């Protein structure tokens, strides 16, 4: 232990690790053990598709709301936002506001209506009154795309986190840890289904929010519970640009192009959440629309309070650790929160926060995996390939096989993406969700005339425009650091440059385009309207008539 008693934090950071890997691994191991026991207990009643995909619709609103917070608050939210505030100050705060306000779209327009009209997946709702097979196929493809981007970002993040928290530096050893995370995730989802996944997310959300809350009170106590004094600490420690930390523009104010980038991101964030398939699927785990509403109310409070914590933690890290120390540590901005934990509570608190960060990745990837498995088995296999002629247990069997395939893909993808700059993938996932999913969800719930062609134009148009614009943007090629001359793009070779689209987030173009395509496709199509299907959907969405009930008594 004496090795880590070095009081100079910078020295610890320079050596490539902070804290005691043994403590970190022990606390994380305890989390895995406890959750595994719970997952095995929860798995006893996993018989039907409703059990496996929707946890028998037996969770209460508060339970599901906590699980939603656990699903939504990824490592990117926790480590990324704390780091962004510590380094860029105010501009980091802007992210968290977009992530939070977005929940009002889900609360007011989507959650309850979706719960009332669907069964397991987003595609249930989108294909309700349209042609089943093409619409389900499109919805499943866009679901898999969102999940893939999101999953890859989480798995790659796991590798970087390992370097920082466990002191594992070799790429091979990091690959091994990514494989362990992936294998654990497969086990949780395979055995526990939605019920096990939900419990993992609930436990993780409680640990994460309690841990962040403890650190927040600790930071505030050091400054006499005066937020202005915390900000002053960050300003004092921020060097010559310290004052700019409490002003907007440090990250996005550089040019009119970066400002446009921010506008695009802000649009994707606020409209993306209500189109994220793994978030939408959580609404099916409660017995009624009223409980879905309660879920979102709980989720909004938990997520909002958590983001308020990150504001204090980010500036606290700036004040107590300092941006230079953070940027010179192996995890760069992502290490702001762990370094702050070490500064406050030493090895033990760092161990807890590290374990929570791992648990975060585990819980989020588990939620993504079950969503992808449900979408493939329920939408593509059962509805498109088998045309609905499939025994319920056959569908669940396919879902379980899909879990293994997706888990394996995530492990391989995570190992390849390790060390890559993949932070943009989460923003891309939000952009795809906002472009490919949200317009069709809104139109099919509220627009009587909307038809199959409109849905397909909007979904494929949104998805393809997002992916193509990202491929042609500076995040993939041609972005060069003006100071060092190094490439900042995914393709490291600076001589390769096909970035003809200047924005790093496609949302500003792809979201309005997808909304427009939905209208154009609908108006150009000669498909006969189905007023009786719209009547059924509208009546069911608002009254809950015929909605799927809980399969197990409480």
């Amino acid at each position, binding site marked *: 232990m004496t090795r880590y008693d070095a009081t100079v934090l910078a020295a610890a950071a320079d050596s490539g690790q902070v804290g005691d890997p043994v403590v970190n691994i022990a606390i994380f191991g305890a989390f895995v053990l406890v959750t595994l026991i719970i997952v095995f207990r929860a798995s006893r009643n996993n018989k039907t598709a409703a059990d496996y995909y929707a946890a028998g619709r037996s969770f209460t609103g508060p339970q599901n709301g906590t699980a939603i917070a656990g699903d939504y608050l990824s490592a990117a939210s926790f480590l990324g936002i704390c780091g962004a505030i510590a380094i860029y100050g105010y501009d980091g705060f802007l992210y968290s506001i977009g992530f939070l306000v977005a929940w*009002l779209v889900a609360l007011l327009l989507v959650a309850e209506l979706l719960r009332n009209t669907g069964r397991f997946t987003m595609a249930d709702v989108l294909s309700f009154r349209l042609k089943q097979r093409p619409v389900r196929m499109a919805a499943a493809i866009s679901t898999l795309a969102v999940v893939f981007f999101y999953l890859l970002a989480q798995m790659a993040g796991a590798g970087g986190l390992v370097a920082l928290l466990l002191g594992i530096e070799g790429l091979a050893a990091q690959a091994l840890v990514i494989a362990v995370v992936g294998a654990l995730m497969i086990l949780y989802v395979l055995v526990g289904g939605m019920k096990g996944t939900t419990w993992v997310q609930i436990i993780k959300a409680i640990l994460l929010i309690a841990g962040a809350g403890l650190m927040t009170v600790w930071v505030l106590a050091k400054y006499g519970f005066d937020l202005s004094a915390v900000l*002053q600490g960050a300003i004092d420690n921020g060097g010559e640009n310290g004052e700019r930390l409490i002003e907007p523009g440090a990250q996005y104010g550089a040019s009119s192009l970066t400002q446009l980038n921010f506008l695009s991101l802000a649009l994707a964030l606020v409209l993306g959440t209500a189109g994220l398939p793994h978030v939408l699927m959580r609404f099916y785990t409660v017995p009624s629309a009223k409980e879905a509403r309660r879920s979102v109310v709980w989720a909004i409070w938990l997520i909002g309070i958590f983001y308020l914590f990150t504001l204090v933690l980010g500036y606290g890290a700036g004040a107590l650790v300092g941006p230079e120390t953070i940027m010179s540590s192996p995890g760069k901005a992502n290490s702001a929160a762990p370094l702050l934990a070490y500064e406050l509570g030493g090895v033990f608190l760092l161990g807890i926060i590290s374990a929570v960060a791992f648990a975060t990745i585990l819980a989020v990837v588990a939620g993504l995996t079950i969503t992808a498995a449900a979408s493939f088995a329920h939408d593509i296999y059962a509805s498109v390939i088998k045309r609905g002629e499939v025994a319920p247990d056959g569908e669940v069997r396919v879902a379980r096989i899909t879990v293994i395939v997706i888990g394996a893909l995530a492990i391989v993808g995570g190992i390849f993406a390790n060390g890559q700059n993949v932070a943009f993938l989460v923003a891309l996932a939000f952009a795809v969700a906002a472009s490919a999913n949200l317009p069709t969800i809104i139109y099919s719930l509220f627009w009587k005339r909307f038809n199959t062609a409109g849905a397909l134009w909007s979904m494929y148009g949104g998805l393809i425009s997002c992916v193509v614009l990202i491929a042609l943007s500076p995040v993939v090629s041609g972005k060069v650091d003006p100071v060092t001359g190094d490439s900042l793009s995914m393709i490291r070779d600076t001589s390769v440059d096909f970035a003809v689209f200047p924005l790093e987030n496609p949302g500003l173009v792809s979201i309005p385009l997808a909304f427009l395509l939905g209208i154009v496709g609908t108006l150009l199509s000669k498909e006969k309207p189905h007023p009786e299907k719209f009547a*059924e959907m509208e009546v069911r969405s*608002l009254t809950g*008539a015929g909605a799927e009930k809980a399969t197990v008594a409480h």
Partner: protein
Amino acid sequence: MCGYFGVSCATVVPLTATGPSGPAEVHVSESAQETDYQRVQRSPEFQDLRRRFRNFVFPMTAFFLAWYFLYVLLANYQHEFMSQRVTGNITVGLLFGLGQFVSTFVITMAYARWANQKQDAVAENLREHIESGALIDSGDPRRPEGSPA
């Protein structure tokens, strides 16, 4: 719109909606093609529920999106204004940002309260009528839930 004032749609030709020259028969006839859900959809109770729902959520959505983008545009393009110190190191921008949190919490609670008090009972009543087969507006014999006429 028929069915208001407690008058059955089957007997009254509505003057609104499609207008005199349009296919008003859709609204008035007890045609064999009409499903249970369409009858419920036409009922004044459901129309009322739907109108109140849309009158709440659409303006509220417009409001919070406008408020959010006002904030985003100010933070993006009005740095000087947002950088003014109000007290100590608390800037206008920080208060605006915290204001987004407050407005989100307030809208959330206002919606939940409104939906619990005003909508749930009506929706529940309609749901029970539909699922028991006793349709509000129907002269037809009862039939099982969800089956088309």
